[in-house]
């Protein structure tokens, strides 16, 4: 006998939202919606037990009502006069509700049984069958991780067990090239013919064929995701001028080595402690502690299952920070979405609507970060049609660790210990999947690559790792990310050798074959190398914090990776071949300079353009998103994402004070620079501008310009196509030049390539994230105007650089000169920093998308004060002054009594007095005797806050 329990929820906000979203789908027949949670028990525990279960655990007696039905075989019919859709997680998908219900039943002493959950939607109104299917598919159910039924859903308890010990031998030695490629494709290996040949040659020499475990291990270890083949490749680069004539040709000995690492090595500041060698970059924070920072992307999973993709994106980058033995203390996120108002009929087949993607991603980030108790303090959200089929989700995490506390040398004899979540069939082929392009079929075939996270298990890991580190219980640690155990164990044992027994891996459900256990990317797992005499202490910690621990094997000094399943060898590979056998790629890149620059002068009034820019989703208020994230937890967010008297103005960067360091005044800033519009025009300009933006955002809030480390995250199209790779080369060259100009070393980075949908690449997008020292937490600055009568200054030179600007995007104009690299940008930032340290700066805001006009308007909006400025009368066009996006510029508010001291810092540096803060409630911009802009503050506020609210 099975039980179906239905709990009616008073979920009016969610119900209203469903009706509203249905209308945007064109389904106007839906007038109301009732929501219920469903719980299924595989065995009837008896009426009294059921009553107790409902009263104590399942039903809120104040707001909810429940009833149950007992049935055998087919579920009872839905008792509803209305149409019904029921949605349940697919078997094997993380279901924390079900797990906690099982635990709660055990706690209550009820007989154990299997549990399944579902959601029930009663839909009121005139709806056709086709309407219902559309509602289910486009609104209520994501078939990647869920399934639905029009009517009562049939509960699926667990996963059907099957014999779980098959190991296949894959004949490879006699295959032709096309057959090798077919094998790579059929098994989702994402390896090219050279790589397949290298594997073939190895097995020919070994005189045997690979097991599926070995082949999958090689594919994961050699994946773009794990080994960055493109960034290590030898590249023949051809640079063409705008007419297609060859300007230059060179061979690049690896993008990473030539540009990114080379910049870091050339700068090498004393406070840089670790770059590129570990899961995250590390810089010094104070006398005793270091800061770690890492940013990852989770684009492909978020395209298919936005909530789960973003959810596990946060989880993954948090584990990167754990992987350098740091306590995670803050997260960042930068998101790129397609247009939110896209008509449904224009949506390509196989793509989720950008609105649904955005809603899911934001909810997924909030769910994970909030539940971990990490402030999501910094970020950006951009909208562009180029992200329609392929959204970008950059997740970052910063951590704190005592200096010298991160051990990195496993010893022979150390135990291979896995901690955290159980292993299921989730996330298979994530590493190789991320190296493939998306098509409209991807959602169907790659569903297993997407997972739902379990932040509470990860929270336990955070607590255990911190204590295990302090008690020195491990010799090495790494996270289980892409490639799962195969990557984590394989990398940790690279210099030694390792043997593991797969039957010791705790499984979520039976039936996984050996390669699936070994490759699974189930979340919330860390691997440690633990000296045998420390195991007991680690077990005690794990037990106290409710974290599961298992010993899988041992590190050895024989240079072999040996994987066993129930005592039988299923993989036996030399570490040397696994880690060095990958042939280096030789690639071809071509970049052609864009067509000649033509500055077009807009003929619309400046005030009208300003309002249009303020309403642009990329500029407009992100408050609706920001408030979904806890940016206050840990009590150290000193400069928040929102500022001003109404706490709704935009800030340039977050300033954070870590718990445990309140005895001194140091804090740190997290900021970002990103501009895909510029990338469309000129990837080099995008790179230098992103570095400038990240640096100036950090400086604007009080960071020391000589103490800024940066991270690069490239999201690009298919790099095997020379034009895509050509743009990537130019962006890397920009990174190198800018890093040197700003003396800002790269400490970590990541690339996400093959971001294409049905053959269309995303706009090549570079995110520069910065982590910077704020020497004195008492001297931070926010962007809101503070008091009428204060003076306004512009730092930096304004040039006719409208190419790739938001104004041009708005007007649909091509061409124009993009912002260039400044010859010597640091002196102005140092001057500003000195002024901030002396308390001479009341407010400061960087000039980015929309230029001076938007920055000034944002300061006025944030401070709810007016401003009156007068622009210089020189050769620059009005639109250049107002909307150009030249680098190195900030607006600064200074009290009248501080004017002389402030100006003294800028001797010989570009600084222009512009005007005053006013109490008039208006924004006025004059030029000579012409009024360019005269707008009421209320109009600015409502325009800027209006969209997406």
């Amino acid at each position: 006998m099975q039980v179906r329990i239905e709990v009616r929820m008073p979920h009016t906000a969610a119900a209203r939202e469903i009706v509203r979203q249905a209308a945007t789908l064109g389904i106007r027949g839906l007038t109301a919606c009732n929501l219920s949670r469903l719980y299924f028990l595989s065995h009837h525990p008896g009426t009294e037990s059921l009553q107790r279960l409902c009263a104590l655990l399942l039903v809120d007696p104040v707001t909810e009502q429940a009833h149950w039905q007992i049935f055998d075989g087919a579920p009872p019919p839905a008792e509803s006069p209305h149409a019904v859709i029921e949605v349940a997680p697919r078997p094997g998908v993380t279901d924390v509700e079900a797990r906690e219900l099982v635990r709660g039943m055990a706690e209550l002493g009820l007989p154990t049984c299997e549990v399944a959950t579902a959601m029930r939607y009663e839909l009121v109104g005139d709806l056709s069958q086709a309407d219902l299917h559309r509602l289910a598919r486009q609104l209520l159910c994501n078939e990647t991780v869920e399934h639905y039924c029009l009517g009562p859903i049939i509960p699926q308890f667990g996963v059907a067990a099957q014999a779980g010990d098959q190991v296949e031998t894959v004949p490879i030695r006699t295959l032709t090239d096309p057959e090798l490629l077919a094998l790579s494709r059929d098994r989702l290996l994402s390896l090219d013919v050279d790589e397949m040949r290298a594997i073939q040659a190895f097995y020919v020499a070994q005189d045997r064929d690979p097991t599926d475990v070995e082949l999958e291990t090689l594919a994961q270890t050699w994946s773009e995701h794990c080994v960055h083949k493109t960034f290590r490749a030898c590249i023949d680069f051809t640079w063409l001028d705008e007419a297609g004539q060859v300007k230059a040709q060179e061979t690049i000995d690896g993008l990473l080595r030539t540009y990114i690492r080379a910049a870091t090595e050339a700068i090498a500041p004393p406070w840089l402690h670790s770059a590129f060698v570990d899961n995250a970059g590390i810089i010094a924070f104070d006398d005793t502690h270091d800061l770690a920072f890492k940013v990852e992307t989770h684009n492909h999973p978020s395209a298919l299952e936005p909530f789960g993709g973003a959810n596990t994106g946060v989880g993954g980058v948090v584990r990167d920070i754990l992987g350098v033995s740091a306590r995670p203390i803050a997260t960042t996120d930068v998101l790129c979405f397609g247009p939110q108002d896209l008509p449904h009929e224009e949506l390509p087949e196989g793509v989720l609507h950008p609105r649904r993607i955005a809603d899911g991603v934001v909810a997924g980030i909030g769910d994970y970060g909030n539940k971990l108790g990490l402030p999501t303090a910094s970020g950006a959200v951009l909208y562009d049609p180029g992200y329609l089929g392929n959204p970008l989700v950059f997740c970052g995490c910063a951590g704190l660790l005592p200096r010298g506390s991160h051990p990195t040398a496993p010893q022979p004899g150390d135990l291979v210990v896995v901690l955290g979540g159980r292993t299921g069939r989730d996330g298979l082929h994530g590493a190789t999947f991320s190296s493939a392009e998306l098509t409209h079929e991807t959602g169907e075939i790659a569903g297993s690559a997407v997972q739902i996270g379990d932040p509470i298990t990860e929270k336990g890991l955070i607590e255990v790792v911190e204590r295990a580190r302090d008690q020195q219980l491990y010799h090495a640690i790494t996270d289980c990310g892409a490639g799962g155990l195969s990557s984590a164990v394989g990398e940790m044992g690279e210099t030694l050798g390792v043997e593991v027994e797969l039957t010791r891996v705790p499984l979520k459900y039976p039936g996984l074959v050996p390669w699936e256990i070994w490759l699974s990317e189930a979340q919330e797992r860390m691997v440690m190398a633990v000296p045998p005499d420390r195991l007991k202490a680690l077990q005690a910690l794990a037990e106290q914090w409710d974290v599961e621990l298992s010993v899988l094997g041992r590190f050895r000094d024989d240079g072999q990776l040996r994987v066993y399943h129930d005592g039988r060898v299923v993989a036996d590979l030399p570490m040397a071949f696994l880690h060095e056998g990958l042939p280096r790629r030789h690639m071809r890149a071509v970049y052609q300079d864009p067509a000649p620059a033509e500055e077009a002068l807009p003929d619309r009034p400046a005030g009208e353009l300003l309002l249009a820019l303020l309403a642009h989703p990329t500029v407009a208020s992100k408050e609706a998103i920001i408030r979904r994230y806890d940016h206050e937890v840990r009590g150290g967010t000193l400069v928040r994402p929102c500022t001003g008297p109404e706490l709704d103005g935009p800030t340039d960067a977050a300033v954070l004070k870590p718990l445990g360091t309140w005895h001194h005044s140091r804090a740190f800033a997290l900021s970002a620079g990103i501009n895909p519009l510029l990338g469309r025009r000129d990837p080099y300009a995008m790179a230098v501008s992103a570095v400038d933006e990240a640096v100036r955002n950090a400086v604007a809030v009080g960071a020391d310009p000589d103490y800024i480390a940066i991270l690069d995250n490239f999201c690009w199209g298919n790099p095997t196509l020379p034009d895509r790779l050509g743009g990537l080369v130019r962006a890397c060259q920009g990174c190198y030049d800018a890093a040197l100009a700003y003396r800002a070393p790269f400490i970590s980075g990541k690339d996400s390539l093959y971001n294409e949908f049905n053959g269309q690449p995303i706009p090549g997008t570079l995110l520069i994230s910065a982590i910077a020292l704020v020497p004195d937490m008492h001297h931070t600055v926010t962007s809101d105007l503070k008091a009428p009568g204060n003076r306004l200054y512009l730092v930096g030179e304004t040039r006719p650089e409208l190419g790739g600007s938001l104004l041009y995007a708005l007007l649909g104009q091509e061409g124009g000169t993009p912002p260039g690299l400044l010859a010597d940008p640091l002196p102005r930032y140092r001057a500003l920093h000195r002024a901030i340290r002396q308390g001479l700066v009341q407010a400061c805001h960087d000039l980015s998308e929309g230029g001076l006009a938007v920055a000034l308007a944002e300061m006025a909006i944030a401070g709810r004060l007016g401003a009156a400025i007068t622009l210089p009368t020189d050769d620059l066009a009005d639109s250049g002054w107002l909307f150009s996006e030249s680098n190195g510029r900030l607006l600064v508010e200074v009290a009248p009594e501080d004017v002389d001291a402030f100006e003294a810092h800028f001797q010989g540096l570009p600084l222009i007095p512009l005007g005053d803060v006013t109490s008039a409630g208006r924004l006025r911009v004059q030029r000579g005797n012409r009024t360019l802009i005269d707008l009421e503050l209320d109009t600015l506020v409502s325009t800027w806050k209006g969209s997406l609210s």
Partner: protein
Amino acid sequence: MKPSILILHASGTNRDQEAARACELAGGAPEIVHINQLRRGERRFQDYQILLLPGGFSYGDALGAGTRLALDLHVYFHDELHAFVESGKPVLGICNGFQALVKAGLLPGPLDGTGNGDMATRPATLTENARGHFECRWVHLAVNPQARAGWLAALDELIFCPVAHGEGNFQVKDEATLAALEAEGLVAFRYVDQGGQPAGGQYPLNPNGSVADIAGICNRAGNVVGLMPHPEDHLLPIQNPLGSPGRSGLALFQALVASVQ
């Protein structure tokens, strides 16, 4: 001797470190204790002078915020906890801790002054925010001068601090329950505007739709208090986003510590 404060940590608790810091700054001696240490008998409720249930997402808020933690309290610690409460020692629940105390039936506790609070028949709850999702924003809180929690009388100004929750919407079974809460002085905190006037249900002053702007309640004995906002996130002026002095949450922790001295 500084008063000893048990800060209860269950899987998913996350504002325990800030709560501990707040207690320290207020002159207390906090210890973060995992619920498993209590279950194994390595620590005992009775050895502490104050019990604090901090914020977070115990058990991931699965089956409702605070519900699983409430079940733990009910199943494993029913007698010890009730003994602690009946001895008159202070218990403070913040956010998820408040949710757990309400769902365990300890808040508001029996309205007629008899018997124990009961998990299954509790008269009040904290349910999904009226706007249907998690929200983080700063709010102004006023102590109800009629509150039975006498130690709150030491708070002479508003508290300005953030809320960060998805299920903070305080609701009651019926009108009579609300009337009893008001009449008996069981309303401890309300959401108010900057000037201290009741929010009147207005969003965002009342951020979650709570009935009668109730942000926190206490039991009849006045020793068990719970609230949704996070006074532990505003202890020093530098944490105040408006930059103005005063209205810090530290006063709440000072009053809590002082109440046992």
